[in-house]
């Protein structure tokens, strides 16, 4: 098993420390350094900064948001970053969520599965330096009856194939990820529940593509803290867990809450969400089972 680090979001006053952590990870032999993106720091800028100051560690987006960029732009960014970093870039993509997609980017959060599939197909075509033409439900390239014509990427990527990951939580997204991507970016994984909540869906997708799990990168992010007081260390992560399980999306559409339910934590997930959405963010969330 390989190790990666996730530096999260930047621009919140810890950038110097983040860079020091990335450089140390590079020296310690960590395989990949990921950077997040929501509605603050953008992943490519951060990764370029890190890539320029490290030597061997791969740099990856976890994620670059699909509603934030046209697929051709993502292909340009991926090719440029791969070239500048000497072939160390990994492209992680995700649909984000309805509130960010529609509120921040003004992009309707509809049909995320087919949108992701088309997006990945266009990105791969563009990165392969094909003359870009595409007819889909969400994208048509070039636009018909206009001056646009099929053109191809002028940048020559460092590698023919840049590893492509998708952030996935729900069963259908996981299955599609297994089918069309090289790896899956996961959150809140439980080793005890991973087969049922995640691996079996990825495997089904791989089988659809005529592949096995061999070579597919199953890549969850987990917090790691060191100390003797396990309960006290777990308390560090309760607010973060409460934000995602209780506060993300809406009561009806919270992917992280649904994941917790699929793991068997229905009661805890409901309680955390009730408290969070009723404004009870100051209190410590209910003590949940640690695994």
């Amino acid at each position, binding site marked *: *098993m*390989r*190790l*990666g*680090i*996730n*530096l*999260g979001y930047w621009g919140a006053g810890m950038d110097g*420390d983040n860079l*020091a*952590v990335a450089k*140390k*990870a590079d020296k*310690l*032999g*960590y*395989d*990949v350094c*990921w950077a997040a993106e929501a509605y603050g720091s953008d992943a490519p800028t951060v990764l370029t900064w890190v890539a320029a100051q490290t030597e061997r560690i791969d740099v990856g987006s*976890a994620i670059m948001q699909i509603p934030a960029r046209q697929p051709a732009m993502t292909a340009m960014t991926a090719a440029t970053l791969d070239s500048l970093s000497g072939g160390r870039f990994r492209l992680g993509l995700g649909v984000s969520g309805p509130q960010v997609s529609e509120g921040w980017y003004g992009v309707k959060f509809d049909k995320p599965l087919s949108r992701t599939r088309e997006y990945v197909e266009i990105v791969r075509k563009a990165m392969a330096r094909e003359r870009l033409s595409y007819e889909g439900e969400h994208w048509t390239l070039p636009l018909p009856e206009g001056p646009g014509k099929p053109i191809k990427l002028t940048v020559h990527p460092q590698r023919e194939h840049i590893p492509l990951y998708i952030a996935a939580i729900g069963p259908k997204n996981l299955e599609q990820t297994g089918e069309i991507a090289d*790896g899956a970016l996961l959150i809140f*994984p439980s*080793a*005890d529940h*991973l*087969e049922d909540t995640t*691996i079996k869906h990825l495997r089904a997708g791989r089988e659809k593509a005529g592949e096995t*799990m061999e070579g*597919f*990168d*199953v*890549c*969850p*992010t*987990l*917090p*790691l*803290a*060191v100390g003797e007081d*396990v309960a006290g*260390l777990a308390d*560090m*992560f309760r607010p973060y867990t409460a934000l995602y399980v209780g506060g993300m999306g809406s009561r009806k559409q919270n992917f992280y809450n649904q994941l917790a339910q699929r793991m068997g934590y229905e009661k805890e997930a409901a309680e955390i969400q009730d408290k969070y959405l009723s404004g009870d963010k100051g209190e410590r969330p209910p003590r949940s089972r640690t695994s």
Partner: protein
Amino acid sequence: MERIAERMAAYAAAGVTTLTISPAGFTLDERLTALRAGTEALERAGLA
């Protein structure tokens, strides 16, 4: 450290191929300690 190594072994057995950590801490030193613990635990688990 043993606990971290055990959990890493559990994740590897469950099918994880790259375990990404967010090294937690209130100071840079604490985060670097967590970073070093990651590689040490991986070795201790026999997964390096």
